[in-house]
């Protein structure tokens, strides 16, 4: 490992300054592509706000918001090809939507449904994982199977800073490195695992630095900078596709809201700390840049806002109605064919329900 490789795992890479100016020496990003990125950022932000409102109205059971992390959400989806796979967590609703899945379907699980809502095989998006870090191994399995079959699929595997302390995080990175599996591990380091700060998860110089121990590149980036995220993640995807194995990318970002609506972040962090990150907002940063270079006029901005409003309205409509629930679904998918015991239990429930109706 060279000094450069160590440096890129520890130093935060950035393309756009917090002020929205390009970091000196950075090539200007393609303006049209960045306007598209901005459109996605606005949509992701709107989705976070809409979902939060739906929780308050009792339409969603719970919502872990990615407010403040929208650049990560957008970038990890936009660098993937159609046949690639995304492995999201409970916090990555906006990333799944950015991948093209209808947000109404994505929100099924958080609404309290018994299934993930979308068909994982259509958009190649795994069900949102809640048991921390466990999904990273599945990502490695999908990638390794693709390699064995001679397919050039790449897998984007997401997790948080807290999840890097789990055993499955270690096992997944190690497996992926040993088998040169085409996986990009993307850690959104938002500084907290519910209430527990990063310092209690790790004293490593960075989370990306952990890659070095597994023999893969680690890259640390500004997680509120869409431009650098897309660049670094696209490079990692390219390496994976070319058969050069996995990469660990750590995004330095911040969870602007509480862990979920059920949490109270004032118990464990200060307003001052939160305020510092307001100035680093990922959506504003891109907007400032695009406006300054003349790529975002009023009309364009309005179209983008209107599209986001339209999406939000469709989410409200989709979650505004209670879809009928079939109690027999309890038994339908536990096995491909229900066991005789489940057939009996289903019949018993049916009799019970018929009795209630009578």
């Amino acid at each position: 490992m060279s000094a450069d490789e160590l440096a890129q795992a520890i130093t935060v890479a950035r393309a756009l300054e917090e002020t929205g100016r390009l970091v000196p020496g950075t090539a200007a990003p393609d303006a049209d592509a960045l306007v598209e990125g901005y459109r996605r950022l606005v949509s992701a932000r709107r989705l976070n706000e809409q979902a939060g409102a739906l929780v308050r109205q009792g339409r969603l059971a719970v919502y872990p918001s990615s407010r403040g992390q929208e650049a990560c959400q957008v970038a990890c989806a936009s660098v993937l090809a159609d046949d690639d796979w995304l492995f999201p967590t409970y916090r990555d609703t906006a990333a799944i939507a950015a991948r093209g899945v209808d947000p109404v379907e994505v929100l099924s699980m958080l609404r309290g449904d018994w299934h993930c809502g979308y068909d994982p095989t259509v958009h190649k998006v795994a069900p949102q994982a809640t048991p921390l870090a466990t999904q990273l191994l599945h990502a490695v399995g999908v990638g390794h199977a693709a390699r064995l079959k001679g397919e050039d699929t790449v897998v984007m595997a997401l997790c948080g800073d807290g999840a890097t302390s789990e055993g499955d995080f270690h096992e997944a990175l190690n497996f992926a490195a040993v088998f040169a599996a085409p996986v990009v591990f993307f850690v959104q380091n938002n500084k907290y695992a519910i209430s527990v700060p990063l310092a209690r998860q790790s004293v490593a110089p960075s989370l990306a630095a952990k890659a070095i121990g597994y023999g893969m590149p680690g890259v640390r980036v500004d997680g509120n900078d869409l431009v650098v995220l897309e660049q670094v993640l696209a490079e990692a995807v390219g390496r994976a596709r070319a058969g050069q194995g996995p990469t660990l990318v750590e995004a330095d970002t911040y969870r602007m809201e509480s862990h979920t609506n059920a949490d109270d972040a004032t118990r464990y962090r200060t307003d001052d700390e939160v305020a510092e990150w307001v100035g680093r907002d990922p959506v504003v940063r891109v907007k400032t840049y695009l406006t300054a270079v003349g790529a975002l006029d009023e009309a364009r901005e309005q179209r983008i806002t209107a599209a986001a409003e339209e999406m939000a309205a469709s989410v409200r409509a989709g979650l505004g109605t209670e879809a009928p629930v079939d109690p027999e679904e309890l038994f339908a998918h536990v096995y491909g064919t229900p066991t005789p015991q489940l057939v009996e239990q289903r019949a018993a429930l049916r009799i019970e329900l018929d009795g209630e109706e009578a």
Partner: protein
Amino acid sequence: MSKMTMAQAINTALRDAMTADDSVVVFGEDVGALGGVFRVTDGLHRDFGESRCFDTPLAESGIVGVAVGMAMNGMRPVVEMQFDAFAYPAFEQITSHVAKLGNRTRGRLRVPVVIRIPYAGGIGGVEHHCDSSEAYYAHTPGLTVVAPATNADAYGLLRAAIEHPDPVIFLEPKKHYFAKEDVDLASPVLPIGRAVVRRPGRDATLIAYGPSVPVALGAAAQAATEGRDLGVVDLRTIVPFDDDTVCAEVRRTGRAVVIAEAPGFASVASEIAARLGERCFHHLEAPVRRVTGFDVPYPAPKLEHHFLPGVDRILDAVDTLQWPDSREVTA
């Protein structure tokens, strides 16, 4: 018909499945060049190559988690846990994902993974090398749990497990690995979920699975010399449980003893006894008895023989089944 050990029968099943279906891959700890610590995967790496049979890093959760992902991407992984008591690091993957993924996706992603586990005792294994872990798996909805008792069944049931659309926990009784029996490889793939009557009997029914089946048969043979005609049902599959076959036998005899090596409390044996109580009560002449391991950690070799259900303990239980005086053994 050929004579082979259970290790060879399972090896043959793996070979035949790998030959029949390119998506079958075998992996785990030491399963490659070594052929597994019990030699079950002997020669597979040599004959099918690194892409079909490979060693992994030493990480059970990793092995099972990667298998889930490979199954999501169209493969049929057959993974080996090196020992029953070393499968626990994978427990989270098994209960949260292997067992639930089909349900969580409304059947859109099924998990045709087979997890082979060298299982149970009787080999004099030192600490942490033996356990009867079937209850953990049987208690987890979504898992199919298979426990062959004969070498022929090990072949037929493993072929079925690999073809099965749902995940299967395949419990291989270690003490059978190196014992030779006749195996008819032309025999069809056995159905999952069906028990078999190993020995018909008029007086009472012994119910067993895996390593306890030969012990039950031994008890039945001994009882026959003493004038008592005991039947033996071999479950073959623990989940789904074959209520029909088991209940039919017990209703005929009116007496039942369930035999298993695992500690009895909250066990598969307890579940069977409860089911018989619920379903066969009016046919029963006596309470269903259980002969199981004690509720202690799996004992070291020096104490193991006190722990494992044996012929005498089974026959003692049979003696308590409230026989009418006229049927008391006279021999």
